């Protein structure tokens, strides 16, 4: 598989290409910088993008069968999962993902996270959490606070490189 051209990826992330608002908000930085900053944040806390994506996916999966009814998951998180017909292509060109919206409300920290299957893929496969100002940005620090993830060992080779 060829290394993706980040300029092309960034072009596909613009508003109106894949989704109405796109993925970058008002972030003026090149995609490589956005990825590097979030990568560093996650690395400092000795967790991985895959752990974060898995935790969010676990919460969403617990509510999927409730067909948009809000569910209390793990006695803490209020989760609602909606899916819509149709698919969204990844800006990296590496798959198609179900449309919809997953909402996780954590009353303990006060954080609310909105994401979908494509968001999870972009975190897991590419370490992408959205640009600053994007209504769908998932702030890694907020995620780390809300998800109670355990750090891995001391190595940073678990982290995906871009």
């Amino acid at each position, binding site marked *: 598989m060829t290394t993706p051209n980040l300029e092309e990826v960034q072009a596909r992330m613009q508003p*109106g290409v894949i989704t109405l608002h796109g993925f970058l908000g008002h972030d003026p930085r090149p995609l490589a910088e956005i990825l590097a900053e979030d990568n560093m944040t996650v690395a400092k806390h000795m967790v991985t993008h895959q752990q974060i994506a898995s935790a969010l996916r676990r919460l969403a999966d617990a509510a999927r069968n409730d067909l*948009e009814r809000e569910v209390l998951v793990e006695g803490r998180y209020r989760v609602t999962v909606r899916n819509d*017909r149709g698919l969204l292509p990844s800006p990296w060109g590496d798959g198609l993902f*179900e449309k919809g919206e997953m909402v996780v409300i954590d009353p303990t920290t006060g954080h609310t996270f909105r994401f979908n299957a494509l968001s999870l893929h972009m975190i897991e496969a590419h370490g992408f959490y959205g640009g600053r100002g994007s209504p769908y940005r998932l702030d890694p620090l907020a995620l780390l606070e809300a998800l109670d993830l355990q750090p891995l060992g001391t190595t940073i080779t678990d982290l995906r490189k871009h």
Partner: protein
Amino acid sequence: MNPEARYRIEINDRARVLRVGGGETLLSTLKREGISLPSACGGRGLCGMCRLKVLKGGTEVTAAERKKLGEAGLASGLRLACQLRVEGDLEIEIPSALLGGKDFRARVEHIEALTHDIRAIRFRPPADLDFSFRAGQYIQITIPPYAEVKTETARAYSLASPPSQRETFEVYVRRVPNGIVTTYLFEHLREGMELEISGPFGDFFLRESDRPIVCIAGGSGLGPIQSIIQDMIDRHLSRPTQFFFGAVNLRDLYRVEFFRGIEADHSWFRYIPALSGKEADHPYERGLITEVVERKTGTLLEHEAYLCGSPGMIEACLRVLQAKGLPEERIYFDKF
């Protein structure tokens, strides 16, 4: 013969033969010849809706096709019409469910809010167009560029009006968060505007049989089920039919009185709306639609089922229906 018609395209074992100039994608070429294939990705090879079989000819497979179709799909002759360029003769197979599609502009006659996030849009096609369809089929609506959306964008919507309603047709649209097309339809579309329509498409329609029927829908999925039931009334069909409609809260219910009226007038029809949310003060069934189907039906060995809703709803309903003995080949739903 037109000297510019350099290439020959044979469709479905010469059921139709085109002579074309070449140089465009097969998708564009077919569209120019009046054969509209569905496409939701603007020809980028992402949605896969324009797939067809190429028996002979064809340009080199693109990376997008390898990703979308896989080696097994490519080995069976599948290609994406938006990726293949017409640079030689071709023999192709197009699914019959896609062959009836027409392209036309239709005027928006009426827009009505059915719920907080679902709208009915009624269109009037050109007077000289014979727009006929089977209840349950869908059309593709193409919106123009707007705001930051720089290109035309198309999406599929099931028809909610019955085939007998000849002069106009309706779709029910549910707003998708951050959606390109639904945001346009909700915030920019006005009565009197025109939109590009393609269709009808799809093989979701009532099968000819005497079997009793279970219909299950959620959200805007009510539309094609409504079309099917109205068509049954128009054609004087009286197969025992149960229609389960699932929603979360009272504000998500619509067309309740309409279906109650059908129930009152037709003894073969039962309408069972259900709410899964916490509201207590209502007369409807309580629980997830799958729970309600489970407790309100017996074995379904002899039935047919028609499902229309979100992928999650369809997955959940498939499990319940199959556990009640309904074979998979008699459970119908749109796969888009």
